[in-house]
């Protein structure tokens, strides 16, 4: 068992089949967590996205879409806006980026995971959910290299198992979680209860 460092950011990445997992997990999160949560899901660019409202409805924690040069706060859930990559400037501030798609995706899970690994190093925790492409794998690898925590959804519970399966095949992961186990796992990462 490695000597894990306190989580300073939790990243949740997913694609097809991941929204239903989020809707199951969010209601059970404690309303005080010692870190912010950044959610990166692949979705169509649409001016009036309902996803933020949908997640907020289910969550006791405030949910908001991340904006450029936003200051991160603990106990909040941020959603990466459709059609932008999200990068961390430092441990407090994020930037949006409209550069080329990565893995045919913008936002790309890899891009945000890698950026977090560079900034938060071993204090990064990332959870990869259901999805049909390999976005997220390289990002998880970066986080693992920094001794961060790498979590994946149990592929048997995933609507589309490919994404978590790729992680399991290629990486040493710290935990494989069923959706019903995720909230309590995340709550335990928090340093204050």
């Amino acid at each position, binding site marked *: 068992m490695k000597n894990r460092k306190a989580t300073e950011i939790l990243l949740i990445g997913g694609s097809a089949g991941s929204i239903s997992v989020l809707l199951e997990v969010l209601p059970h999160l404690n309303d005080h967590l010692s870190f912010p949560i950044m959610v990166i899901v692949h979705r169509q660019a649409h001016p009036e996205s309902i996803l933020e409202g949908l997640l907020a409805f289910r969550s006791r924690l405030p949910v908001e879409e991340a*904006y*450029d*040069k936003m200051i991160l706060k603990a106990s909040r859930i941020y959603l990466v806006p459709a*059609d*932008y990559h999200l*990068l961390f400037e430092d441990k407090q501030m994020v*930037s*949006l*980026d*409209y550069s080329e798609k990565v893995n045919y995706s913008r936002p790309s899970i890899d891009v945000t995971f890698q950026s977090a690994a560079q900034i938060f190093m071993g204090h990064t925790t990332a959870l990869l959910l259901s999805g049909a492409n390999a976005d997220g794998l390289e990002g998880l690898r970066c986080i693992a290299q920094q001794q961060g925590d790498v979590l994946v959804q149990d592929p048997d519970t995933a609507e589309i198992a490919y994404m978590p399966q790729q992680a399991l095949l290629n990486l040493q992961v710290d935990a494989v979680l069923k959706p019903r186990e995720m909230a309590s796992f995340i709550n335990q990462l928090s340093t204050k209860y």
Partner: protein
Amino acid sequence: MVELDIVKNDDMEMLLKDISHLYGYDFTQYSKASLKRRLNRICMLDKFTSFAELRYRLIHDSTYLSRFIEEITVNVTEMFRDPHFYATLRHHILPILGTYPFIRIWVAGCSTGEEAYSLAILLKETNLFDKTLIYATDINPSVLEKASKGIFPLNHMKQYSRNYILSGGKNDFSSYYVSMYDVAKFHSNLSSRMIFSTHNLVSDSSFNEFQLILCRNVLIYFDKDLQNKVFKLFDDSLQPLGFLALGAKETLRFSNVEHHYKQWNEDRIWKKIS
């Protein structure tokens, strides 16, 4: 694929100082996170195995600078991107501008020109084209060269056509260009009211007074201080009651000129009120 991570923060600072000192291009207030990705990307594209190689090339080969500027800046753009934004321009903003005898529009950071051509089409369709000048500027001379030609990949036209229709366009989008092999060449008439010029938002000053300034998805690459500096530049370049249009996730809120402006509904368009 994710990029390599061979450029460290200290390396980056050093390189930016070199470029500023040698060539007068100041990138030191660009957002570090994006810039670092671009530097790693250019190392990968041009096969530099270390940061020192990139630095050596830049210092000793002045012809490499244009390539560097082209790759370090993000040149991803679309025609009629965010169709709802163009619908607002078409139905609400342009009719107001139409009351002026002469219209000047600045597309700041125009990249390869897709927004300038989208505007030209809107102006044609609202019968304002002949009394408008579009100033299309960018830091990067090579994208301006492309923009002036009005040639875009043919395989993007399906998406652009869809955007155009969603923005309220009533014509056949393909009537604005001719297809040649794998490209679409837009009618040269559309660029007849465009003026292309290099302009560096970091270091160049105001050069005219406009009724509409578009600067979409450019400011996200700047840090807060530089964003405020550029907002001041736009403020100095907008005539009273003029409009400033930003990208879908950019805002004048929290900026130093916020109080002079009123947002147009929920759109990323602000009217200068004082």
